[in-house]
Structure formats: structure tokens, C-alpha cells
């Protein structure tokens, strides 16, 4: 206690030796404060310096509020843009993950990694009755190699380059229809096949709330484009896939083998005519029968290959669309569906935004934290120096 009292005189003396500012400095500082610390250098007047000063002056809460508002506005705008894009250019029904909604496939646009070649059919993807159009369409790349001409492939929908190649084509089309329209759509499918001189290999039609139909068709390749266009216009297209397969090699091979077989038969016939001994004639006849069977098999194989290029296999699936069973009027169910889709898109946008922003924000936060720590350490060291 005595020691503390001894320090009292020191404390009093310390207060007496307290340094005070010069009057000139105090005056100058008073003026600067009264003027609100005006910029002293040219740099201080620059917009960048102004922005930095403004940013430093903002309260963290306000900064968070402003950032949150900006993020919400971005999400809302992105949602509106993407949702409106989906409703006008693609199938509104989600066919893939959330991200598939973010990248709607335009009609006529390939969803595959390869672009549609010029030889690919340019088929209208728009649907009838003002409904939205097809969402996905793909086609394999058609070979562009020269070769013998082929009139069968000289169709409207495929490029002339395919004439000298033996190309097998196939297509799958999905249609969405109201349950009550499935039967009518099926009839239109039959009519389209008839108009194209095609063949219905198989068909299944069911009615009721889960009404639907499945068709396996053979369409003349020369009229495939027209037929697909007609089928696509029957109802709303949910998907369409087209593929081509080059079967030139097996066709040429079968044709050459057949020619060789025919030549062999001719040779055997000549040998048979020249045979003088009965046993020799029997041996030649036996060989001739075998060669004829071989030639028959080759002809069948060639005919099959020929049929595959002449006709294209087309699968059509009609699925009923319960959400469309409202007579065209936008109702409560539609509203629920639309709200769900909008929420899904908003969630996707948010997720993508977070995936991008979160690591950046984390790195920035860690960098800021490290800078603060470094600065504090350096400042404390200045006292120990």
C-alpha cells in the first residue's frame, strides 16, 4: 500500500508531463475535421479511392444485407430467364437433372457431342396445336466417303453423298398426348405410315388414365423425313432420336461373295456338261447343290441388307400426359407444377451459384483472416523491436 502511495506522486507527475499538441497542428486538424477530411492528393480524388473509402466505411451488416439482396436478385433474374427460356423453346418437363433445365436444347440442336452432319434430316420439331416442341434430338455422324451410287438413299431428307453408301437408318419418337387423344393419335400414326408406304410391324395401344401406344414401323428410307415430320406434328414431341449405321462393307462383301458363287455355279455347270462318267457327274452335281445353297444364303443376306437400307426402323411411343388433361385452361395443378419447376430452377441456380461463390468466398475469407493475423503480428513485433 505504501508502494502504491509512493507511485501516486509519480502518477501525478506523469499527468503533468503529458505531451500536448502544438497550437498550429491542433488548428490544422480542427479545420480538416470541420471539412470532413477532404482528399489531399490527386489519388484521393480518384473514383477508385472514393470507392475504396466508401467500401471501407460500410458497416459489415449493411454489406451482408446488400450482398444478400444482390444474390437474391441474381437468383430471381436467372430463374425468370431460365424458366421463360424453358417454356418457349424446350420441353418444360424435366427430363434430366437440374442442370439439364439450365441448358435447354433448342429444336434442331444436337444434344450429343457431335454436330449434326449436313446429311442429317432437317425435320421440323415443332408440335401441333401450339404446344411446345421437341426437347432432344440427336443423330450420329454420317460418313462422307464416296462410292457406288444408290438410288434408294436418294431421299429428300438425306444428302446425295449417301447415295453411294449403304446406310441403315432408324428413329425413335416420343409423343405426349392427353389420355383421350391417344386413340386418335394412334389412328394418325397408321395414316402417316400408310401415306409413306410404310409397314406397321407391331403396335400396342392402351386406354384409360395411363393410356399410351407403342409402334414398331418400317418406313421407306426415301420417305423417312416426310414421315417423321408428319408423326412429329401429330402431338407434342417429348423426345426424338435418329441414328444411322453404315452397312456398306457387309453389303459389298455379300455382293462379291454372291458374284463369286454365281461364277462358281457357272463353272460347275460347265463341268457337269462336260462330265463323261456318271460318278464324275454325280460329284459335280453334289458340289453344285452345295454352291446353290450357298448362293441362296448370300442372296437372302443381301436381300436383308437391301431391306435394311430400303426401309428404316421407326419406333413411336405415345405416352399420356396427365398434366395436359385440363382442357387447355391453366388451373391449380398447372400452378403447382409451374411453382415446382420454378423452385427447382431457383434451387439449381442457387446451387450453381454456391458452387462457384462458396470456394471463392472461403478463400477470400481465409486470405483476409491471414492478412489480419499477419498485420497484427507485425504490429505487435514493432513494439518488441
Amino acid at each position: 500500500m505504501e508502494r502504491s502511495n509512493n507511485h501516486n506522486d509519480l502518477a501525478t507527475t506523469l499527468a503533468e508531463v503529458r505531451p500536448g499538441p502544438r497550437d498550429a497542428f491542433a488548428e490544422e486538424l480542427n479545420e480538416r475535421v470541420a471539412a470532413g477530411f477532404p482528399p489531399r492528393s490527386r489519388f484521393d480524388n480518384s473514383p477508385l479511392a472514393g470507392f475504396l473509402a466508401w467500401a471501407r466505411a460500410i458497416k459489415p451488416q449493411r454489406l451482408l444485407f446488400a450482398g444478400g439482396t444482390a444474390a437474391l436478385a441474381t437468383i430471381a433474374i436467372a430463374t425468370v430467364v431460365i424458366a421463360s427460356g424453358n417454356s418457349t423453346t424446350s420441353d418444360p418437363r424435366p427430363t434430366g437433372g437440374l442442370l439439364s433445365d439450365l441448358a435447354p436444347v433448342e429444336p434442331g440442336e444436337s444434344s450429343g457431342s457431335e454436330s449434326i452432319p449436313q446429311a442429317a434430316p432437317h425435320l421440323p420439331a415443332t408440335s401441333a396445336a401450339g404446344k411446345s416442341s421437341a426437347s432432344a434430338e440427336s443423330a450420329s455422324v454420317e460418313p462422307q466417303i464416296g462410292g457406288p451410287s444408290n438410288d434408294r438413299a436418294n431421299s429428300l431428307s438425306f444428302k446425295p453423298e449417301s447415295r453411294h453408301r449403304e446406310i441403315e437408318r432408324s428413329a425413335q419418337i416420343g409423343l405426349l398426348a392427353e389420355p383421350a387423344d391417344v386413340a386418335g393419335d394412334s389412328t394418325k400414326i397408321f395414316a402417316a405410315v400408310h401415306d409413306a408406304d410404310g409397314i406397321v410391324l407391331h403396335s400396342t395401344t392402351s386406354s384409360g388414365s395411363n393410356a399410351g401406344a407403342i409402334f414398331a414401323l418400317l418406313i421407306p428410307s426415301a420417305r423417312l423425313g416426310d414421315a417423321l415430320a408428319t408423326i412429329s406434328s401429330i402431338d407434342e414431341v417429348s423426345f426424338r432420336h435418329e441414328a444411322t449405321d453404315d452397312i456398306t462393307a457387309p453389303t459389298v462383301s455379300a455382293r462379291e461373295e454372291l458374284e463369286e458363287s454365281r461364277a462358281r455355279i457357272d463353272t460347275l455347270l460347265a463341268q457337269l456338261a462336260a462330265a463323261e462318267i456318271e460318278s464324275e457327274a454325280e460329284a459335280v452335281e453334289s458340289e453344285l447343290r452345295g454352291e446353290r445353297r450357298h448362293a441362296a444364303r448370300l442372296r437372302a443376306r443381301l436381300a436383308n441388307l437391301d431391306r435394311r437400307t430400303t426401309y428404316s426402323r421407326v419406333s413411336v411411343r405415345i405416352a399420356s400426359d396427365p398434366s395436359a388433361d385440363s382442357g387447355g385452361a391453366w388451373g391449380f395443378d398447372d400452378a403447382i407444377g409451374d411453382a415446382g419447376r420454378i423452385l427447382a430452377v431457383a434451387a439449381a441456380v442457387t446451387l450453381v451459384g454456391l458452387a462457384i461463390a462458396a470456394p471463392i468466398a472461403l478463400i477470400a475469407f481465409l486470405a483476409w483472416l491471414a492478412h489480419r493475423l499477419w498485420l497484427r503480428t507485425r504490429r505487435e513485433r514493432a513494439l518488441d523491436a
Partner: protein
Amino acid sequence: MHRQGSWPKPPERHVTDPHLARSKGVNETAIDTAAPASADLDFERLYHSSRDDVYAYAAGLLRDQAAAEDVTAAAFERAYRKRSRFDTRKGSARAWLFGIARNAALDELRRRGRHAELSVDPVDAASVPGADEHGSELRLLLADALGGLEARERELIALKFFAGLSNGEIARVIGIGASNVGTRLNRTMDKLREACDGAL
């Protein structure tokens, strides 16, 4: 043994302008009572009440008049720019201001990369009016003893006796516990006392 808060307050001085209360020697209790409780900081009031204290702290720590003036101006300018970020829940306005002033002073120390040498005596120790011969001698000895302190010790003295901060405010400014502040202050005063006694 010394108890926290038992040091005498700086002597009261004649108050001519209520805005310059602390600058004229009014203790911090009166200022804290008058400080706005809302989040909005009355910067001008804070400036007028703390200008001389900030300068005294900077001069006491840096022992360089020009540097102290620079630090004081920089501290108030930074505080002015950041005034909207002041949060009453995190402490008093003076503690917040001295936190900024301390950063500015340490930046100055760091920039110079050395302990500041006394280029201008912060006070003419022997010229306090009405002081007796013994008092003048003690002031001179004290000024010398302050120069022999480490920067951390000198900072404590400056914050406590030049700036007039309470132990709690000092604790908040330098980031240690209030009781630790009292202990360190007592140790530093012992050191000053020994230096003065040894000189006598």
C-alpha cells in the same frame, strides 16, 4: 500492493469549451456518460474530447512530435472514414478510437523499423508553472526514465496517464485482460520509480 484503479486521475483543468472536455482534462467517466448510447457516433464530439489524449498517447509512445502529429491525424481520419462501422456493443467510443490510434502508431513504428528516438521533448518538463524545484527535478528524471522504458511499457504509461484510459479500456485497446493491465502497470511504475530513485 497496488489495486486496480487506485491511480489518481489526471488533474482537472479549466474547461472553456464543453466539446474540448477531455482535451482540457475532464476525466473519462464524464465523457462516457455523455457519449451517445446509440449506434450513431458523434464524431465531432469524440474528436474534441479525445484529440489531445490521442496526441499525448502517440507522443508518449513514439517520443517524436512530428510522428505523433501524423499518427494523430491519421487516426482521426481513419476513425472518420470508419465511423459508421462503430458498434457500441463492442466497447466505448474512446476504446474504439484508441484501437485505431494504436494501429496507426504501430504502423508508424513498423514503418520506421526502429524505436523512435526523442527528437523533440514531448514536454518541457521543468517549465510547469507553479512547480517547486523538487517537482521539476522529478519531471526531468521521469522524462529520462520514460525514454529508458520498453515500447510496451511506455505504451501502457501513455494510455493510462497521458490518454487517461481506464484499465478496462486499455485492456480492450491492447487486447489483454484488465487485471493483467493492472499488474503490468504496477510493474512499469515500479521500474519508473527505481529509475528515478536510482538517479537521485
